[in-house]
């Protein structure tokens, strides 16, 4: 049985929509009936599988300079055509165009729940901005192989519109979206490991199954004051909480942190604290919380004048299986609060 013919909208810039060159880059969003300009390649690739019902066009400068207005207007034009699929571009190496394609696809997916696909060259800034959210097929830098490349966009777009399973990036030709999915490999992990090691030992090329993380290096800032004049805060991801865990910080995969006052305390009374952390043996820090958060020694340093002042609030979360996104957010929030409070330096204890 033939699949239902799909309604498709094509998004193009002024050049590929045949409105004109750079002199027309300022034109605002407009819609043209049927397949116009490069959208005809989309129609050709679709064959009987679908019909380009409308071509939506926007000038590169307009889309780049007035994105806040242009994208919602374009979304409305797409919505009016009631498509099953939006094919944006391909934008090749055209930067403003690529960013507009990515932004429009992301907005259409999110607001209209309609499948989208775009395509561009790997150095197009639109790739890094949108590949996590939008299926972006890799193309050449220029439109020399337009039809072949549009064929690949459309093939992936049809799968997405029909809700069919999408294969891995290498097979489908899209930029990895940075999400992981369990699949069943052809050989056991042990066999793959031995084989990869033999390749590495022999100097043959091998492909690691895990991309290297792109943790940006965070240089430690220099303390501009002397320690004698500095306010020092204690922060930990080792899970120290007041008994009863008032902020309900999760034992694993934490999304919350707590701020706990140590005002008037020269040390921490073990009976008043607890530790929900499930990533390490907490026996010893429960027995004596100073093993994790050294309030006792810090107070002595404050008394003796070795440090200016101990900040009266400690911050604590549970650092185990925490997502990078939550870690970064919590770190940012804690850092902002510390800066507002005039803290100069932090002793961060981790486990």
């Amino acid at each position, binding site marked *: 049985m033939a699949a239902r013919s799909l309604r498709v909208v094509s998004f193009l810039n002024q050049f590929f929509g045949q409105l004109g060159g750079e002199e027309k880059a300022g034109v605002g969003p407009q819609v043209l009936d049927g397949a116009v300009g490069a959208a005809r390649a989309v129609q050709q690739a679709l064959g009987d599988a679908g019909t380009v019902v409308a071509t939506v066009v926007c000038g590169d400068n307009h889309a780049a300079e007035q994105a806040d207005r242009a994208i919602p207007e374009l979304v409305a034009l797409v919505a009016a055509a009631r498509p099953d699929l939006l094919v944006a571009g391909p934008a090749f190496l055209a930067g403003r165009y690529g960013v507009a394609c990515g932004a429009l696809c992301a907005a259409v997916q999110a607001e209209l729940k309609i499948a989208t696909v775009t395509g561009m060259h790997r150095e197009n800034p639109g790739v890094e901005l949108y590949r996590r959210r939008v299926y972006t097929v890799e193309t050449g830098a220029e439109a020399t192989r337009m039809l072949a490349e549009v064929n690949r966009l459309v093939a992936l777009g049809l799968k997405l519109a029909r809700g069919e399973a*999408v294969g*891995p*990036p290498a097979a489908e030709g899209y930029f*990895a*979206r*940075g*999400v*992981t*999915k*369990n*699949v*069943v*490999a*052809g*050989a*056991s*992990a*042990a*066999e*793959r*490991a*031995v084989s*990869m*090691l*033999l390749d*590495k*030992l*022999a100097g043959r090329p*091998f492909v*690691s*199954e*895990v*991309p*290297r*993380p*792109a*943790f940006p290096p965070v240089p430690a800032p220099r303390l501009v004051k002397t320690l004698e004049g500095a306010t020092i805060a204690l922060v930990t991801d080792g899970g120290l909480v007041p008994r009863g865990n008032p902020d309900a910080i999760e034992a694993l*995969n934490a999304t919350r942190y707590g701020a706990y006052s140590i005002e008037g305390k020269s040390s921490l009374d073990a009976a008043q604290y607890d530790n929900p952390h499930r*990533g*390490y*043996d907490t*026996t010893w820090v429960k027995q004596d919380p100073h093993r994790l958060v050294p309030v006792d020694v810090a107070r002595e340093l404050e008394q003796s004048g070795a440090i200016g002042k101990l900040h009266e609030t400690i911050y604590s979360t549970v650092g*185990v*299986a*925490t*997502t*990078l*996104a939550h870690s970064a957010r919590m770190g940012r929030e804690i850092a902002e609060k510390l800066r507002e409070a005039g803290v100069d330096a932090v002793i961060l204890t981790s486990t």
Partner: protein
Amino acid sequence: MRLELRWSVVDDLAPGPATRLAGRRLEVDVDGLRALLAADSRLTGVRLDLVHPGERCRIGRVFDVVAPRAKLDGGEDFPGVVGGVTRAGQGTTLALDGVAVVATDQQTDSVGTLAVIDMAGPNAELSAFGRTRNLVISAWPAPGTERSDYLAAVRLAALKTAVCLARTAREAAQPDRVEVFELPPSPRVPPELAHLPRVAYVFQIHSHQRPTGVDEGILYGDPVRRMLPTIVHPNEVLDGAVLRGFMGRSVTTWATQNHPMIKALYAQHGRTLWFAGVVVTVAQATEPERVRSAFLAAGLVAHTLGADGAVLTKIGGGAPHVDMAQAASQCEALGVRTTAVVEDMSTDGSAEGMLLFDLPGVDSLVNIGSSQEPLTLPAVDRVVGADDLAAKLLGETRATYGGLCGAIEQVGTTRVMAEVR
């Protein structure tokens, strides 16, 4: 050292008047075995169930899975835990193929954290234990029994059962196949094979994220509390010297007894590589311990075993993952090329969270998938090992790959992997 595994294939498991192997049919004297296991004063009440592949049955609360093995000569059964402390890995061991002993933990209450085995449907395909005939042990703690003592008792029951079942093969006329593991002392390489790269395996056998119990025998019955990296012969691992700790995740004793990395290295030994030996380590709890353990392990690999390359696996969660990577990095620093088997550590399915380290030289990684990825457990007709949770476990249930016992084995038995999309 030479170890012979004499395999008898079992294709039916049924109750019978005596525990015996009748051709390929394993008959179990269920009442007799139950009485033997119930004699442990730490347990009150033991229940045994037999389940078969293809049955719409779910085993709940899986604690560990043990492969039936019994020494015919040359040593003790599970030395240091069942038998006396003596060297494992030599002589002859009887092994049954197609049958497994599944121990359940009746103190695990949260449906979200327990591990299950499905005997039919898509999940049976994902786990080796969906394809074996399983003898399931459910035992309850006697009043006043501490958790660690209870788990020690359950584990001992599983090991004794494994021995009892494998002993039936003594009477077998002919084993179905014989597997021989023979590795000379590591420096003795014949000149014609001296060109092969020497490869070691660094086997993390436990994680100190949680302290071990007194009776939590892991290496020859030792709870490895202060263990530093040490060298063992691979045959010792295959022959019952190493058992899983009580709180392992995505790791079974069965996988260690059929260790896939050791078998893969044996398979290539003398052909594409020279198997230089095994270093066992534990994941440490503090940074100084991790650093010390990492360079000691790397030293054994590079200086003692003289390896050119090493493969590494971990057990447990994030800290062991980093511990293994530190050992790999120390190996690389000594010129030993490494490949490590990692779990996808991301908890939100983002590729950015897959790894918890970025260390020099640790650039060739194999992954065993994400244990956090959701999985659907379809409705079944019968639940064993978790009678009181049957209402929840009979119907369609949400679980994760990590909750399906045997879908992911950290030592590398399994084929599930996380692909970046």
